[in-house]
């Protein structure tokens, strides 16, 4: 008798049950277990590009549940990633500066990359520059897959440099070599702009100093990584040249990062010494500009730089299907990195570097030759992009450029700060 008269409650229950079954059915066809959550730190022009590339990935991979999250660059990103990995509940994949790999404690915070899956997805060791690939390995295990390299380069305003007589017949800036030709080039530009020759970031001139010091082939740590072996004469030579540029008004005495971008954009400076990632900014501003390798001011070509890599942050319980999908994602990103290169970065995946799609990118392909000479930060837990060593260099060297302290004082302060970091027990 109850069956013939369904009450309102039974009808509702039945409806809910049906809805539930429908949802479950939907899940089954969606292959729910392939989930990829990605964390990255690209907030600028390259971040906008990353989103476009991700949209394409999602369109081609309907069977994977993909979500990307962009977090604030630098310490906030690394702190959040470290905490999620230390708790074992990290996202499936994250971006990491290669220079920070060691400081990120591979043993506890990263999971090794399954080489067999990577090979299955078509990515193998010969696809990369040996130096880059080796740096992704720790104790024989691969912990990171490099996506790109981003060296310190030279931006030049083509109008200003043409007036200064610095361009060759092909419209490219004529390469200079040595300190005096370098200074002559800057003086010629200053003559045209009436203000500065080059815009640089004085509040953190680490990349500039590391480039010049690297060109002098100066060392940093000894073999053991426990002792500081900075060559004072070379370090002071590099620092002295930077102080001279500022004192002569060829570069500003004081400029933070936004000022660096502004001074090149508005023509106060005809050159800019910076990482290559501001291409999009200047293209959007319709600036007449191109790019070239940073001049070899001293003995050997070396350029401060770093690489963005993909890592698998530590998960207490790793889902095999998710990991497989994640490796597929990494491989897809590498194979499609020509679009990523449009944002300025040199692809790490060599087949893309050789592709016409990349070679036709102007000015992004103009400085690709420097890739083998990219000089990574010293290898230590407190070193790398946005890490403590760069902050200490900024604190010590900014005063030298501003003319408040001598190169000697700046170097002594930096060495003392680095020694203190070396003496600090490593937390990783």
């Amino acid at each position, binding site marked *: 008798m109850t069956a013939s008269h369904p009450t309102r409650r039974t009808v509702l229950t039945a409806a809910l049950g049906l809805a539930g079954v429908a949802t479950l059915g939907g899940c089954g066809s969606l292959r729910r277990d392939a989930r990829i959550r990605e964390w990255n730190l690209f907030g600028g022009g390259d971040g906008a590009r990353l989103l476009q590339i991700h949209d394409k990935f999602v369109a081609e991979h309907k069977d994977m549940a993909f979500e990307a999250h962009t977090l604030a660059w630098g310490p906030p990103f690394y702190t959040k990633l470290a905490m999620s990995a230390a708790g074992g509940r990290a996202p499936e994949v994250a971006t990491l500066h290669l220079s920070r790999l060691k400081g990120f404690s591979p043993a*506890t915070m990263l999971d090794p990359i399954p080489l067999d899956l990577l090979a299955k997805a078509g990515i193998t060791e010969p696809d990369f520059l040996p130096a880059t690939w080796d740096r992704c390995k720790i104790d024989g295990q691969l912990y990171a897959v490099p996506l790109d390299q981003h060296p310190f380069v030279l931006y030049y305003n083509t109008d200003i440099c043409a007036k200064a007589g610095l361009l060759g017949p092909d419209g490219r800036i004529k390469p200079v070599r040595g300190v005096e030709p370098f200074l002559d080039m800057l003086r010629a530009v200053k003559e045209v702009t009436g203000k500065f020759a080059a815009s640089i970031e004085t509040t953190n001139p680490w990349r500039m100093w590391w480039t010049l010091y690297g060109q002098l082939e100066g060392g940093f740590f000894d073999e053991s990584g426990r002792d500081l072996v900075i060559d004072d004469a070379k370090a002071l030579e590099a620092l002295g040249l930077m102080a001279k540029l500022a004192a002569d008004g060829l570069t500003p005495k004081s400029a933070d990062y936004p000022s660096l971008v502004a001074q090149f954009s508005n023509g106060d400076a005809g050159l800019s010494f910076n990482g290559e990632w501001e291409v999009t900014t200047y293209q959007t501003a319709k600036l007449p500009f191109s790019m070239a390798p940073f001049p070899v001011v001293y003995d050997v070509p070396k350029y401060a730089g770093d690489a963005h890599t993909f890592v698998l942050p530590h998960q207490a319980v790793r889902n095999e299907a998710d990991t497989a999908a994640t490796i597929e994602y990494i491989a897809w990103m590498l194979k499609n990195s020509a679009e990523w290169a449009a944002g300025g970065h040199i692809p790490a995946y060599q087949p893309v570097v050789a592709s016409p799609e990349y070679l036709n990118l102007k000015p992004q392909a103009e400085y690709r030759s420097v890739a083998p000479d990219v000089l990574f930060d010293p290898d230590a837990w407190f070193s790398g992009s946005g890490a403590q060593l760069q902050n200490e260099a900024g604190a010590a060297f900014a005063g030298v450029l501003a003319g408040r302290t001598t190169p000697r004082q700046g170097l002594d302060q930096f060495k003392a700060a680095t020694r203190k970091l070396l003496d600090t027990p490593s*937390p990783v």
Partner: protein
Amino acid sequence: MAVQTPPRTTSSPPTTTAPQRPGPPWTEKWGGLFFVAPFGVLFAFFLLWPTLSGLWNSFFNTSLAGVQQEFLGLRNWQEMFGDPAVWASLRNTLVFTAMSTPPLVVIALVMALLANRQGLLGWFLRFAYFAPFVLPATVVTLIWVWIYQPGFGLVNGLLTAGGFAEIDWLNTENRAMLAVVITTVWWTVGFNFLLYLAALQGIPEQVYEAAAIDGASGRQQLFRITLPLLSRTTGLIVVLQLVASLKIFDQIYLMTDGGPNYATRPIIQYIYESGFTSYRIGYASAVSYMFFLVIVIVSIAQFRLFGGRKEADR
């Protein structure tokens, strides 16, 4: 308890049921606990437990990187006492507090006095003085970093227009802290202003009328009536302001990131850097506890001074 228990001798008709008679029901005796339980649980979980675990951590080399921790005893504390960065950043915090508290009290008072008596203009002044306080730290710092920029900033524009040389406010060691203080005063003085305004409006009009009849000048009314009657409010504002200034972090982190050359880095930023950027939770805990002690000492000193004033008032 003794008061509630009736003396045995006076107990009238002893009944056998008396000892077994249920006392006040259990819920009545312990019911109060239920009322505080929600807060108690939150307090224990979010304040008491982290506070104690912070102290515990300060004796270990606890790392955010999840490596095996080992007992260090007092070594974190020893390292802290020998770490010049700790003392430099603590000094910056105290300097900021000393530089920001007096103007935040005095300017708030002056603004309240100005806004209190205005009829038509009053609503505008009240709005204008309080408006910056509602802005978030990120917006305030963004505005002021531009204002301070050399080359195109407002302040330097005014300086050069007046024939003075430009000042690189945020990148000069002895100017950066002043720049942060100016921004902080602009941003937060509105709150103290509001407290003063409320207190001013609480002073009865008759007091002034009586004083005026007695021939007191405006100046005398200010110093003999208004300021003394505001002394309680002043005490409150000073306490609140000291606590707020000692907690300085946001605007410095956003404007100078502690620079140039760590000239503005407050102790909380150093704790943040040690614990989160460098993963050294154990060491950061030790420094936090030291700062905790500093705040306790300041609070006790404040309490003494404030208590003393109350005695004097009587």
